């Protein structure tokens, strides 16, 4: 179980290291504009093959690269309804504060839980291997956070129910 997680993260790390070769590329259609090509997808010659890495039926990671930008979309494992709700709320909370994260995308790509958009400007300001470390660390921590949240919700629910039902004893 832990082994597949390690392999999954290694695979993603290697793919990101290879795919994060971004350079500045001004927009070809509009003068003086500089847009992340992976979002627009107007010119096919600027895009690389998108890669989908699945760990199992529930967890997957889509990596799309272009000449000046890279988009990583993650689908996090959600075992039951409660985890579903917790994941959605938690990741929405993070996405709304995307400004603070810089590389986070405000809305996840259709079919995924959270998306990152890394542009050549990010690669110039920040170190490439640190960005990759961040993404991989994020993936590890998300699972831990969701389990912790689930545990605390269940504990609190149990405490509240016990207290409430005491009055009926």
């Amino acid at each position, binding site marked *: 179980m832990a082994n597949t997680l390690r*392999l999954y993260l290694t*695979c993603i790390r290697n793919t990101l290291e*290879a795919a994060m070769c971004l350079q500045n590329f001004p927009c070809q259609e509009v003068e003086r504009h500089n847009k992340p090509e992976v979002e627009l997808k107007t010119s096919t010659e600027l895009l690389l*093959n998108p890669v989908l890495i699945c760990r199992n039926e529930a967890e997957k990671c889509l990596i799309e690269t272009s000449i000046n930008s890279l988009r990583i979309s993650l689908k996090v494992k959600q075992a039951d309804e409660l985890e579903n709700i917790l994941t959605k709320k938690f990741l929405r909370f993070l996405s709304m504060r995307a400004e603070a994260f810089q590389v986070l995308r405000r809305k996840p790509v259709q079919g995924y839980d959270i998306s990152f958009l890394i542009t050549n400007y990010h690669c110039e300001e920040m170190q490439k291997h640190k960005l990759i470390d961040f993404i991989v660390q994020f993936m590890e921590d998300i699972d831990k956070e969701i389990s912790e949240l689930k545990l605390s919700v269940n504990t609190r629910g149990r405490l509240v129910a016990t207290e409430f039902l005491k009055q009926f004893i």
Partner: protein
Amino acid sequence: MAGHEEADNAEAIITRIEHKSRKIESLLKQYKPVEALKTALEGSPPKTRDERCKSANWIVVHRAIMAIKDVDGMFSSLDPEYYDILMKYLYRGLSTGDRPTCDQCLRIHEKLTERAGLGCILRSLADTVNTV
């Protein structure tokens, strides 16, 4: 004109793939998974747009990949010229989402990256002409 040629080629390619799959079944019965993988990767149809050919070849390669038990041993006998095409098929395997396939592909991917380096990954990402 090119369309007709493609169609003929597609039929020819699919027949070749069927021959290949029979050969691979016999190789697997003789416990030679590495040979089977080499055969599967060899005749990969290049530059064909036909999805059926690609799917047919993928099924054959998938069979060979799942039969591999000893990954390190496989790399010691696999020639480097097959690394790139194997990487492309690994990514196709990873996109299926089927648990045993993904497990096996992740295992092979790690070892293949150690062997072939990041260039192999980048070539599979950048090659939009010969896709699997």
